């Protein structure tokens, strides 16, 4: 039966619906090229590292719509060098010069967490950011995707951008997760099993009973990591949980967006997580994944809990549950980096930060922290780190002779205690 509110003749996926609406069409099909209007454009330090110079070079005076641009600083905060301090100084000037009204400065935390917490991310929105992990917003049903600086300059000037309508693939996730096995383990498992290219140029919809059970925070971890399997967007269809979460943030009624029942998927992958072990991505690629029982002995020097992937309250809570009454191994530095000021405050209020301090962890300010290797917590040659972050490339966190293993917050916490990468389930 035809849905009376539906203008298209064909069923559409979330990606197709959003791109059709944003390009003023009744329907779009995978492979089509469209020009779409942007609902939110997000810039972090990228503004000062190229975007504003490109804007000036093109003769642009003001952004196209001050209500649709959100900027903040998160990668190098507080500024670690004079050079970055100069860049930040320039950005503060850019914000004024280009008439950008929604600017959060450096105190709020990592862009993807902050944009969600501040209510900029709503179901059905098309959001571009100068950051590759912008697909994080798919956890709330928004089409978020990363673009480069020159393209962002174009967006800030014109409010539109070209897109190829992506094919949509589905990961149907079933089975109950074992205690202390987290959504990070699920997405690492998917990367390992189907490779880092399974979603290249495509939109993902994570569905199935297990996806439905995941908290919004856990969903954000998977949408965030969908970048690492090549995706343009990484959606969870908004449900009652999404609506309740966003209602609390915005105080407004939220209009959900749904996939059509007859939408066409390029492929459906069925993933059963029953009995799934904690998963580890071995250097130097995100899809080089092994179950914890196959990893062998890996002695660590550093453990990092945080980032836009796993720096939310539930991640900190999980780690604190494991660390409570215990201390970090004497040969290990454990860095805890809450993803935002809000997360930091809640962790403070609920006593989690005390647990971390008593365990001898170092609590850092909300930021991207050591994740991208330009700021605090860098690794020396020959050192090894287990981290709840999203990439383990060569040189990612300091020395090119260092190694980064990716894992869940639970695995990071348990490993920090034992001084080597271990299965956290013994702490259940």
């Amino acid at each position: 039966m035809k849905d009376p509110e539906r203008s298209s003749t064909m069923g559409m996926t979330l990606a197709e619906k959003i791109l059709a609406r944003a390009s003023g069409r009744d329907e779009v099909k995978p492979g089509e090229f469209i020009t779409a209007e942007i609902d939110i454009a997000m810039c972090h330090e990228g503004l000062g590292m190229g975007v504003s110079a490109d804007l000036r070079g093109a003769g642009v005076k003001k952004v196209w719509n001050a209500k649709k641009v959100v900027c903040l600083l998160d990668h190098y905060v507080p500024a670690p060098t004079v050079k970055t301090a100069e860049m930040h100084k320039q950005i503060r000037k850019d914000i004024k010069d280009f008439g950008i009204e929604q600017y959060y400065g450096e105190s709020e935390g990592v862009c993807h967490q902050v944009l969600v917490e501040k209510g900029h991310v709503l179901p059905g929105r098309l959001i571009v950011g100068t950051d590759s992990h912008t697909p994080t917003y798919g956890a709330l049903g928004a089409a978020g995707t990363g673009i480069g600086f020159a393209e962002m300059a174009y967006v800030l000037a014109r409010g539109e951008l070209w897109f190829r309508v992506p094919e949509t693939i589905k990961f149907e996730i079933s089975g109950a997760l074992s205690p202390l096995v987290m959504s990070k383990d699920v997405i690492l498992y998917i990367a390992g099993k189907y490779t880092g290219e399974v979603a290249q140029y495509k939109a993902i919809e994570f569905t199935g009973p297990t996806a439905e059970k995941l908290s919004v925070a856990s969903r954000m971890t998977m949408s965030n990591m969908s970048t690492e399997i090549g995706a343009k967007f990484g959606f969870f269809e908004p449900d009652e949980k999404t609506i309740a979460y966003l209602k609390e943030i915005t105080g407004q009624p939220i209009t959900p967006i749904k996939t059509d029942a007859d939408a066409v998927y390029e492929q459906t992958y069925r993933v059963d997580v029953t009995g799934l072990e904690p998963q580890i991505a071995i250097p130097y690629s995100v899809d080089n994944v092994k179950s914890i029982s196959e990893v062998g002995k890996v002695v660590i020097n550093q453990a990092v809990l945080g980032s836009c992937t796993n720096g939310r309250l539930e991640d900190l809570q999980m780690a604190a549950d494991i660390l409570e009454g215990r201390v970090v191994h004497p040969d290990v530095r454990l860095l805890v980096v809450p993803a935002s000021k809000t997360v930091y405050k809640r962790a403070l209020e609920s006593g989690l930060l005390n647990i971390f301090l008593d365990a001898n962890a170092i609590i850092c300010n909300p930021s991207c922290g050591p994740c991208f290797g330009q700021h605090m917590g860098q690794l020396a040659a020959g050192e090894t780190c287990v981290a709840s972050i999203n990439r383990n490339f060569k040189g990612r966190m300091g020395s090119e002779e260092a190694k980064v293993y990716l894992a869940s917050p639970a695995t990071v916490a348990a490993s920090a205690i034992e001084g080597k990468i271990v299965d956290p389930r013994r702490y259940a």
Partner: protein
Amino acid sequence: MATLIRGKIWKFGDKIDTDVITPTKYLSLPLQEMKDHTLEPINPRFAREVRPGDIIVAGRNFGCGSSRETAVTALKALKIGAVIAESFARIFFRNSIAQGLPILTCLQAPQYFEEGDEAELDVKQATVKNVSQGNLIQGIPLAQDMLDILEKGGILSLLKEKIKGS
């Protein structure tokens, strides 16, 4: 952008990520210095010996990783003629178009080219000829929207044009 691009082949493998193309530790250098470290972790000779017009042939998922545009601008600063790969990571692909760096997706390219071969790429036709060995292979053509941006020399040239026209 020239429609025909001729140059010497430099070969790379699969999953060449943006952290390898422009290593993090050089990101704060000016582009003219940063470019001298392009691809250094896997081929320290590359940035020193590459010549304007030379063409990169790589495997799968070239340019995966962060959205850093330096991965493209450094290759442009070295005056690389084009990048041909079995597949590209999404943001690198977008950034290449946006910066006016010709790219070609071509599954068979790695098996038809050896390092040092002479190649001729026809961007519009999406074909590449191995001049040294005589083979002509077909890649995946770019859409007209992308070719338009490439032809204008990048999305900023397009922007300037639109601003002038409005």
